[in-house]
């Protein structure tokens, strides 16, 4: 391998690394949004279950085991 080849590889690899970093940062941001939505949906579901449980108690239904 000669110097020119090394330079070319180094440059190409550097560009690939930056491209990977840029795309990964965007992907992380997307994952963070996905996690936020996931958590919000989960909490909403649990609150719905809790509301149903309270409603059953108010209506005199026996509490779940």
């Amino acid at each position: 391998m000669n110097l020119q080849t090394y330079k070319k590889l180094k440059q190409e690899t550097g560009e690939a690394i930056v491209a990977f970093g840029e795309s990964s940062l965007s992907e992380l941001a997307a994952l963070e949004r996905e996690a936020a939505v996931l958590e919000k949906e989960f909490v909403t579901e649990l609150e719905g279950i809790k509301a149903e449980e309270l409603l059953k108690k108010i209506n005199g239904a026996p509490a779940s085991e």
Partner: protein
Amino acid sequence: MPGKEKQAISPNEAVLPKELSSDRSAEGRERGRQTVLAKLQEQGAVLLKKLRLDGSFHLERLGLADNREAEQAVEKYDARRQEIMKRIREKLVIAATLAMLTMGTGKALGAELGDLEKGFQSVHTEQSVLLEEEILGMQALQPPIQESIGEITAANEADMEEGQSDDLVLVQGWKMGQEANVPTTEKPLSADEKELRKISQAVSDIMNACMGLQKDNCLLTVTQATMKHVVLDSLIPFKRGLTRLKEAADGEKMEAGERFGKVVSGIFDLLTDAATIHIGGKGVIKLAQLYRAYQGVTSATAAYTFYVENKKDVLMALKTIFGGASSEQQAVENTLATLEKVGQISEDTPASIQTN
């Protein structure tokens, strides 16, 4: 979950560093690569921390611990949460590998291309082989083989973490004044002059290589210096870091990522070893601080982040460790002075060795 506080997850747009603008110097590009990877690691770590809280927190908060329907919702949520965390970790593993390889290649013969030409012409065969291996390692990072590199790095990190307990035993052993029953500290250093001279030469070579950190060309030269010396196991106070360096040096068939992971780890272990020895001495407050900070480092990713964040102090610490020796004799004196501090030199050691 009792004792845990809720950490809200909020969208956070990724902000690219300024160094990544199109008009930039070679130095800027080098910094840019490292910065974008460091940024990636930082954001990934923050996100992982946020996701650490499992669904049972909300289950208990809402008093639904005995509700079967709620438990099923938690299982579903945790499975998806774990999947997201897995995808983040995969990114971090690749980023850590890239960071190490970027450092390794940049430091093979000087980080900048201006220095590269001169270095390349003077390089000998052994270095050329290593350089080509590095470049092959870099090429291997291109898709679609990123996954295999990730696996290698993950395995490497697992090995490091596995060895952590032994490391802690060694550190604790030194702290207790070598009272602990640790094999590497049981036997005093051999008084044989020839042996000591070999050790001093190893110290000198590695010291000179570490000094190269200032010129941003340390890692490969450290590896090469280590390769020259098979006697390093005798250098007891720095055994842990040197063992890692020797593993890296001996690992000619290792993937580049694994090899440089061991080099990075070895350098930091040297730092830790030396800090352990020097705590309480003159001008070592910074070393002590670094030592305490490094105690929390348990992975290659964290080691690299630690290096980036503390580069200036690390350089100062390495200077302190090796005392700025510029000759074999001075290296011998520094080595002896260091060994004396940890009580490794017996009274039987010939005076000629101690002063020569």
